[in-house]
């Protein structure tokens, strides 16, 4: 379970996240929506500490995964990232073979048992619904795949290290509708075994795939509710204005 308590975050002097508290249940899909620059991606990246890579940032508040504060001094960041996988906006397979892409996370973790790696690669590609398309060309470059396949490869890559949470930052925004619907189907299936948090600009996508939806605006969490409630009868007028297109 993910939980944040009074999270505040600054880029330099810019107050990007304002006092955000939220609880995300296990094995659910949670979508974050909101206008560009509202802080939803920043918030997503708190959960695997990707914001650590950006210089001159500052955080207050607590961010808990299964009750443990992931920002406490004793936390091993690489270990955290093995538990919290991430899929990015643009498919970013490494310039390696399909097989090596999926095996990468295991190898950097020090796994050297070839049989085990081969098994995990196959399982992950199957979970990502990509196995049938690539099983005959595992030794080919990942760049030979289409954009949609590359994104599913990136999902398989994240699954290979058996995380419990998967963060997705606009995972389908660079894809065509057919690839997008494959990713969405996949998210539906993955929900059984993983907790998924997804940032999307596509509100219909949020409506289709998520159980809960959070609406962010100007660094604040305006509303966090069941997706059905948000799209049929939101509690807050700001949410309604945004999702019905009467923004501003």
């Amino acid at each position, binding site marked *: 379970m993910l939980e944040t308590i009074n999270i505040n975050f600054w880029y330099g002097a810019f107050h990007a996240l304002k006092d955000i508290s939220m609880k995300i249940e296990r094995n659910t899909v949670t979508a974050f929506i909101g206008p560009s620059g509202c802080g939803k991606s920043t918030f997503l990246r708190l959960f695997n500490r990707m914001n650590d890579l950006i210089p001159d940032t500052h955080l207050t508040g607590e961010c808990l995964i299964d009750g443990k504060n992931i920002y406490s001094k004793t936390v091993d960041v690489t270990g955290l990232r093995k538990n919290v996988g991430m899929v990015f906006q643009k498919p970013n397979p490494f310039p390696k073979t399909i097989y090596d892409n999926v095996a990468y996370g295991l190898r950097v973790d020090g796994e050297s048992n070839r049989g085990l790696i081969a098994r995990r690669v196959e399982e992950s590609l199957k979970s990502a619904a990509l196995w049938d398309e690539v099983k005959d060309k595992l030794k080919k470059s990942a760049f030979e795949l289409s954009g949609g396949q590359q994104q599913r490869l990136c999902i398989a890559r994240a699954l290979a290290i058996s995380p419990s949470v998967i963060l997705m930052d606009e995972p389908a925004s660079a894809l065509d509708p057919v690839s997008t619907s494959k990713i969405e189907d996949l998210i539906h299936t993955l929900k059984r075994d993983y907790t998924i948090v997804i940032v999307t600009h596509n*509100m*219909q996508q949020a*409506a289709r795939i998520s159980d809960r939806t959070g609406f962010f605006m100007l660094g604040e969490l305006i509303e966090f509710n069941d997706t059905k409630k*948000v*799209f*049929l*009868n*939101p*509690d*807050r*007028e*700001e*949410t*309604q204005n945004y*999702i*019905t*297109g*009467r923004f501003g």
Partner: protein
Amino acid sequence: MKHAEKELASLKDEIGQMWRLVLSQLEKAKRAYLDSDVELAREIASREKRVNSFELKIDSDCENCIALYNPVAIDLRLVLSMMKISIMLERIGDFADAIAKYIIRESGAAADDTLKAELRVEAMLEAVTVMLADSYAALDTENTKLSGRILAQDEVVDEIYHDAVPVLAEAIRSGRISAEYGLKTMLIIRKIERIGDHCSNIVEEIVFYIDAKVLKHSKSAD
């Protein structure tokens, strides 16, 4: 105003036109019944087609709205309720038409003003007309305060309907009217009662559309 908002506004405008048409059909039916005015009844029957075409138009407009604009939240509730309301308005139009046909067909039968008074069909027609007018006002002003009054009217209608059965049975048994005329009259009364039910349903749709919004306004204030 955004493009999608214009579409929704024109949808609302259309349903208003349909509403006024159905309301005038119902009022005319009431007058034609009271005065046994066959000419007016023919006029009602001839305008029934316009009601039907309104329903088809609104139905396809709602489909387009959903297909093209992906309405959500209050917009979605508006489109969904308009779709259902247009179906119910069309049914009410059908009933007005049935009343008109009854008037035309039974014009030969001697108008029995005593029986009419006993059956209280006039009051019934008056009640459903008010219900329809009030529910339109509720939609137009986006105000659900009228809903209680409208639903109360429906109980009056139901009461008159239930009272009509023994009155008609007695009239048939005593030979004042033919059994056939009595049964046909019963069917018409039944149809007027159904108009009341439809009006109640329309009010429920309006509450579905509006009330969330009202609720939301009160919440976002704090």
